[in-house]
């Protein structure tokens, strides 16, 4: 609902997309600023994608390079698939934020800096010998430096706050200025602040005053030169109701919807871990939807309690990230053995071990597909974006319930934290998959707990059901009775039955996301690389190249037509944020010469680097690795540039 009209003011520039990065100290509230700016951007009808990047430390020492927190948003009046490569605008709330983020700014880009924070001490902490705002070193950019700190203090003066408290509103002042730049209404922010500080109205008022002051500062145009209003009409979108959504919210809502479609109460066993905890937090507030959340004593107890709940007749769900998933592994094997529904959400992060807790990676694919003792087949599906995670979570619930199996849903740190607009779906359009419990048998028929249906699934019997008492466990069991059975032929048959059940799961045929069904090159992705691959492939298609994009949701079992589809291309390039894990699966399954393009810097792919790699591939130099990119988020924090 952009209010901008055709009568463009003289100082207004028209753009179809723009990348803005807010950067400041951990304590400056940059994530909040970014989040609220995202909301107002969405309300204005622009398409968008965000990238929040924050240090692993909760309160890193003030003013330091490693304490810089940043939030990047790419928004536009056209379709947006990534958080953007290089920013057009950098908001730097202190010298450290400028130092860490400057290199990524586009040449000629705009810097908005709080000169009040460029004190001698802060400059020293950021290892600046001279003040960059004054020494001419920023000449190739547009620089707008003024004392935001002082102006904020002035704006909130009437509310009698001390300087320290007053400065907390600095981010709102900055947000006010950004709202003016893009002609966004302030009212939703006013409402939000009033609600947020309901019990402390003076803080709400101070923040509102700061926001309005920042906005007024732009409006009264005490400034000349670099700061101009940008006119960005809404992006074309399917008609409907929209909201913004992060991956963590989307997974949570998808699980709630999935449990309802299965007509089951949901039990969620979780343990705090970055970046998966947000799912536990969201679900803990949804008790009225038949959700029980249980914060267990450890990752193992989290999954075991979920399996216990599934055994008792609910939909058990657990969630974690790499190290926690490793701890849950033995219990997954039990889930596979006792054949009970279970959804395991893995929000992947950089590994191995503790690795990079707050950075994204796709390196748990082997762990998901192969990482258990014994022949332990388990379906694996992956979300490609925050909005997509909703559908994928429902799909995970469907497979778990219909096939009586644990299912792993892969997202990653990027999807979990990033936000995008989401067309709110109509629940009436969802297809239900009600769970069925065996409640009795026709007279005289022997109860066989492992007798399979046409899908290969065994019956689900809730304790409490008369006459169907039975025992399950992790020891190999007889093909039909489920009693302990170590005999060689039984184990071989059971191994094959478990494998075939999972391989027989019905998954939709693979579609081509972009481009033709055959050609010179197919770029095959999975998970959060969807956005950059789509954009990069799109650029080559525009140039007339025979390139296509295939994005795989069902990692295991793979869509039945995938091998055939890939064989229609001369080259297969698989970009992944790991050292080539999905490539290995594709080579193994289809004996095709899939080439890996890897990036293992904890940073998502950028469109430009993918575009270049596709070009090399078309030039017969397919694959390779991409070097860490110092100019993108997450920044190499604390590193001199």
């Amino acid at each position, binding site marked *: 609902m952009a209010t901008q009209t055709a009568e463009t003011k003289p100082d207004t520039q028209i753009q179809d997309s723009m990348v803005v990065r807010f950067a400041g100290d951990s304590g400056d509230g940059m994530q909040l600023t970014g989040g609220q700016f995202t909301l107002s951007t*969405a*309300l204005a*009808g622009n398409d968008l994608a965000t990238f929040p990047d924050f240090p692993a430390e909760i309160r890193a020492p003030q003013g330091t390079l490693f304490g810089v927190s940043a939030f990047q948003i790419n928004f536009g009046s056209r379709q947006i698939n990534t958080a953007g490569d290089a920013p057009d605008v950098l908001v730097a709330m202190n010298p450290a934020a400028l130092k860490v983020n400057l290199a990524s700014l586009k040449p000629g880009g705009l810097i908005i800096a709080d000169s009040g924070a460029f004190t001698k001490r802060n400059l020293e902490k950021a290892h600046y010998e001279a003040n960059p705002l004054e020494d001419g070193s920023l000449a190739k950019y547009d620089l707008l430096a003024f004392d935001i700190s002082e102006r904020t203090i002035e704006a909130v003066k009437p509310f009698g706050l001390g300087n320290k408290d007053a400065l907390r509103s600095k981010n709102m002042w900055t947000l006010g200025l950004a709202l003016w730049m893009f002609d966004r209404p302030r009212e939703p922010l006013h409402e939000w602040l009033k609600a947020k500080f309901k019990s402390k109205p003076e803080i709400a008022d101070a923040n509102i005053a700061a926001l309005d002051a920042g906005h007024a500062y732009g409006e009264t145009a005490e400034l000349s030169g670099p700061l101009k209003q940008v006119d960005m009409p*809404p992006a*074309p*979108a*399917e*008609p*409907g*109701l*929209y*909201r*913004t959504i992060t991956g963590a919210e989307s997974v949570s*809502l998808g699980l*709630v*919807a999935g449990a*309802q479609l299965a007509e089951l*109460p949901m*039990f969620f*066993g979780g343990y705090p871990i970055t970046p998966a905890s947000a799912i536990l937090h969201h679900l803990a507030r*949804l*008790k*009225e*939807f038949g959700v*029980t959340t*249980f914060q*267990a*004593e*450890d990752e*193992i*107890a*989290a999954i*075991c*309690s*979920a*399996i*216990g*709940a*599934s*055994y*008792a*007749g609910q939909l058990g769900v657990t969630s974690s990230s790499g190290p926690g998933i490793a701890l849950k592994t*033995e*219990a997954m094997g*039990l889930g596979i053995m006792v054949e009970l529904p279970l959804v395991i959400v893995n929000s992947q992060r950089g590994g191995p071990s503790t690795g990079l807790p707050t950075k994204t990676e796709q390196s748990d694919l082997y762990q998901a597909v192969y990482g258990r003792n014994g022949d332990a087949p388990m379906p694996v599906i992956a979300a490609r974006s925050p909005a997509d995670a909703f559908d994928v979570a429902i799909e995970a619930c469907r497979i778990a319930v219909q096939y009586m199996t644990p299912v792993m849903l892969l997202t990653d740190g990027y999807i979990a934290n990033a936000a995008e607009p989401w067309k*709110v*779906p109509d*629940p*009436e359009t969802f297809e239900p998959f009600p769970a069925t419990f065996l409640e009795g048998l026709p007279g005289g028929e022997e109860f066989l707990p492992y007798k399979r249906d046409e899908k290969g699934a065994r019956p689900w019997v*809730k*304790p*409490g059901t008369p006459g169907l*008492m*039975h*025992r*399950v*466990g*992790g*020891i190999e069991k007889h093909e039909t009775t489920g009693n*302990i059975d170590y005999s060689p032929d039984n184990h071989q048959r059971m191994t094959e039955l478990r494998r075939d059940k999972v391989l027989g799961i019905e998954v939709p045929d693979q579609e081509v996301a972009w481009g033709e069904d055959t050609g010179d090159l197919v770029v095959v992705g999975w998970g959060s690389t969807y956005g950059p691959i789509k954009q990069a492939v799109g650029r080559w298609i525009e140039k007339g190249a025979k390139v296509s994009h295939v994005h795989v949701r069902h990692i295991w079992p793979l869509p039945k037509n995938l091998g055939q589809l890939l064989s229609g291309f001369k080259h297969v390039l698989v970009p992944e944020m790991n050292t080539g894990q999905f490539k290995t699966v594709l080579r193994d399954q289809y004996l095709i010469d899939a080439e890996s393009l890897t990036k293992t810097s904890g940073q998502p792919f950028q469109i430009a680097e993918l575009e270049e790699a596709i070009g090399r591939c078309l030039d017969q130099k397919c694959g390779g690795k991409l070097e860490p990119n110092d100019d993108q988020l997450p920044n190499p924090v604390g590193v001199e540039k």
Partner: protein
Amino acid sequence: MNEVTKIETTLKDWETDQEVRWCPGCGDYAILKAVQRTLPQLGADPKNTVFVSGIGCSSRFPYYMESYGFHTIHGRAPAFATGMKLANPDLDIWMVTGDGDGLSIGGNHLMHVLRRNVNMQIMLFNNEIYGLTKGQYSPTSRLGTRTPSTPLGSYDRPAQPCAFALGSGARFVARGFDVSKKLPDVLKAAHAHEGAAFIEIFQNCIVYNKDVFDDFAAPKGAEDRQLWLEDGQPMLFGNEKTGSLKGISLDREALELRVVDVPDGDWEKAGVLVHNVKNRSIAHMLVELPFGEFPMALGVLYDDPRPTYESGVIAEREEATRGKDTSIAKLLAKGQTWTVSGTAADPV
């Protein structure tokens, strides 16, 4: 929780068609029979009863009980049981674990299920050895225990299961042993307790740790070495007829329990304590009584219920649900939304 209807069953109704595979002479047989004998007396309903176990000799237990049963993974039975109980509080859950399963690999879960106070019976079969893996020393093995993994004798001090349970916040702590005739009474008391009821059951591993409990469990001289505790009754042991009657008194200066002689059966005069199952301080002393100097304290050492975990979870959920809109459509459209009108090709 709903009042469960009592069902008439016999011992046979609780036996499965599975061949019991413990070693001949194993104490587990006696415990199995004691449980199968007790359940009919409780009016327990097989369809609502679940036996949950971890891994080890004791954990084979569910296969032999004609009820619902889940033989899970090593040490984690408390977590499975917690999930089950939260999903269906009407289930009557018996957890079976051992000294290795419950105190070594699963010590963490045991601690938390006790402190949370999930309503179930937890039977820890303590044989002071790893049986199923062929005789390594366990966390309850006595100092100097020689096993394949400690050929020169173990040098770590044993854990005390009842002290662990009480320290973890258990509200019911009891002790019995495999062949004891009083074991069913202990099991009944545990079942009557609303909350996590912890029972340490000394169990004779005939193969790897034979007769280590004979000091107090052997029938001969048992009355002098077993202190059976009963609520409201004096803490007496020995035999009045043979003149060996003794009792436990409290040294109020040293804050320690003492063994005192009880001449002529006059326990009051001798200062013998009356057992009060709700006295947590005395319970702390009872679980730590060193055997030898003292008899083995058996029976219900402590029993003082408080609200269960699942009742809290359910109450919270009901409170959080009251008056709330449960429309999924509204949930999905929560927060700030905007509407795009027109057609996809030509949005307004």
